[in-house]
């Protein structure tokens, strides 16, 4: 077979993997719909969906959609950060971007009146869905710029940049604690939300915002896929291919921080999805960003949905927030990546 023929076959393999993942996601969504304190068979499910069953439409469906889009968002944010920082350990969580967003959200809640809550069933929700993401974005930007600045000024190793992320996280956590210390009980309760990432909180309006922001960011990242591939070849080669590395880096960092901030605003801090998902895709289909961006999105959605379903059912009727589950799965994976040596698992 010709070289081009073999290459086309390889491309088909990657596409087939994507189709397989989509199929898996549909299957998992169906399972997640049926499972829970109130069990349903597949046959009952279809009927219940059409009948407008309130458990499905008010609890499970919003939850599943949130898990899918937040998982996908964090995963593509991680995939892009790993490329633009040339750092396999980069992700919204490990760089302190999520924690910065949580700090911003805490300020919005306590000082800018976004702190009133109301109860919907089991979940507490926060009013004013717009103020929180804006402040979360500003908070995430602090981390983003600090990381960008150190990555640019000092040619630090991937591990050192992650350590800087750890420092930023500690700083923001101290900030959040300080705000809590002076806050009212109600405000403290709503801030504590961010310490447990949870996909049950988002209401339909917030889900629409998450979906819209995800789609816009996804289109941008996908549009930039050739630029990201060029950056893998190093800045000098990228320049010689007509790419502007500084601009791609700045835009990528801003947009992935914004995407992270929106997710954190509505679901709190969910760790490790952004770190792990791109690596899983890389292991299977390699580092080509044409496929890495869309497939990381699907894998991120799968992991978050699977984690949430496990958290919901493992000691049902008690629901464990999904952020705890992803950390239990993700932390060992993170240590594994560290042991393999940051440099060898280059994005």
């Amino acid at each position, binding site marked *: 077979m*010709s*070289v*081009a023929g*073999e*290459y*086309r076959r*390889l491309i088909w393999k990657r596409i087939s993997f994507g189709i397989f993942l989509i199929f898996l996601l549909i299957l998992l969504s169906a399972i997640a719909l049926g499972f829970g304190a109130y069990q349903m068979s597949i046959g009952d499910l279809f009927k219940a969906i059409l009948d407008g069953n309130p458990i499905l439409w008010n609890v499970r469906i919003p939850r599943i959609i949130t898990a899918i889009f937040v998982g996908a968002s964090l995963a593509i944010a991680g995939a892009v950060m790993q490329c633009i920082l040339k750092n396999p350990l980069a992700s919204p969580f490990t760089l302190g971007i999520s924690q910065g967003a949580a700090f911003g959200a805490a300020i919005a809640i306590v000082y800018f009146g976004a702190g009133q809550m109301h109860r919907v069933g089991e979940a507490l929700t926060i009013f004013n869905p717009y103020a929180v993401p804006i402040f979360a974005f500003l908070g995430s930007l602090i981390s983003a710029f600090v990381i960008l600045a150190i990555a640019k000024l000092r040619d630090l190793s991937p591990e050192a940049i992650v350590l800087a992320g750890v420092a930023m996280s500690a700083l923001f956590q101290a900030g959040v604690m300080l705000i809590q210390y002076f806050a009212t009980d109600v405000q403290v309760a709503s801030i504590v939300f961010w310490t447990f990432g949870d996909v049950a909180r988002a209401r339909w309006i917030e889900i629409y915002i998450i979906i819209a922001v995800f789609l816009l960011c996804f289109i941008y990242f996908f549009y930039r896929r*050739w630029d990201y*591939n*060029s950056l*893998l*070849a*190093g800045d*000098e*080669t990228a*320049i*010689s*291919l*007509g*790419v*502007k590395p500084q601009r791609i880096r700045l835009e990528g960092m801003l947009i992935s921080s914004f995407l992270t901030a929106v997710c954190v605003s509505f679901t709190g801090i969910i760790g490790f999805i952004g770190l792990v998902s791109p690596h899983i895709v*890389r292991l299977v289909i*390699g*580092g*080509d960003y044409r496929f890495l961006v869309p497939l990381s999105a699907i894998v991120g959605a799968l992991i978050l949905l699977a984690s949430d379903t496990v958290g919901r059912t493992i000691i049902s009727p008690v629901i464990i927030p999904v952020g705890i589950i992803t950390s239990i799965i993700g932390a060992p994976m993170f240590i594994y990546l560290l042991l393999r040596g940051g440099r*060898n698992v*280059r*994005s």
Partner: protein
Amino acid sequence: MLEVERISYSYGKKDVLKEITFSLGRGEMMFILGPNGSGKTTLLKCLNRILKPQGAVYLEKIDLNKISPIELAKKIGYVPQRGEISFLTVFDAILLGRKPYIRWDVTERDIKIVEDTIKMLKIEHLALRKLNELSGGELQLVLIARAFAQQPKYLLLDEPTNNLDIKNQIEVMRLIKNAVKEKNISAIVTMHDINLALNYAEKIMLLKDGKLFAFGGREIINEETMEVVYGIRAEIVKYDGRFVLIPEI
């Protein structure tokens, strides 16, 4: 025609290039020689705006700063000294050479060009391997293939024969020379191997401490310049119609 007028470059306070002036016509092959740290790589990087020097560079009479990055990438290809280690396959990595031409996605024509380049460099067996699995020499061939796939008018190569065995050195030099002659490309090559340069170069530039020490044909490589530029005693002998430099050891 590439015209370079008094370009200088410094890293912080250290002046690496000092007022270099030269020009190179289409279809010419030029070698930049000089000791380690004499500014060879820096000069190369100033010619396609990886670095922004003082002074002026004109590409076909147009100021380099007035050409958009994409247009510049269509005109000048660059082979860096060191390759990247990534999870891209060789085919994907060479396909990147088509980046300046891609609008939304690669076309059949791009795929065909990459396939032809792979055949030309005889690296079909590597096509679907990942870059992180390649040896230094194999990676070097991929970088050269990428620059060829870019179909530039000017080719800048930073020590392209590094890491290559003697057969591949000859093969790569032959490919570059053919491209220069058949496609009317201009190539600028930095190199440490003076013997290779003596046998392929039409023009040679000798750099010493960031300054242009000599510029001309192969006659500028002689006992005297070797002693002044490299600090070695050497003899240039003609053997079977070819020139060979024999250093005293």
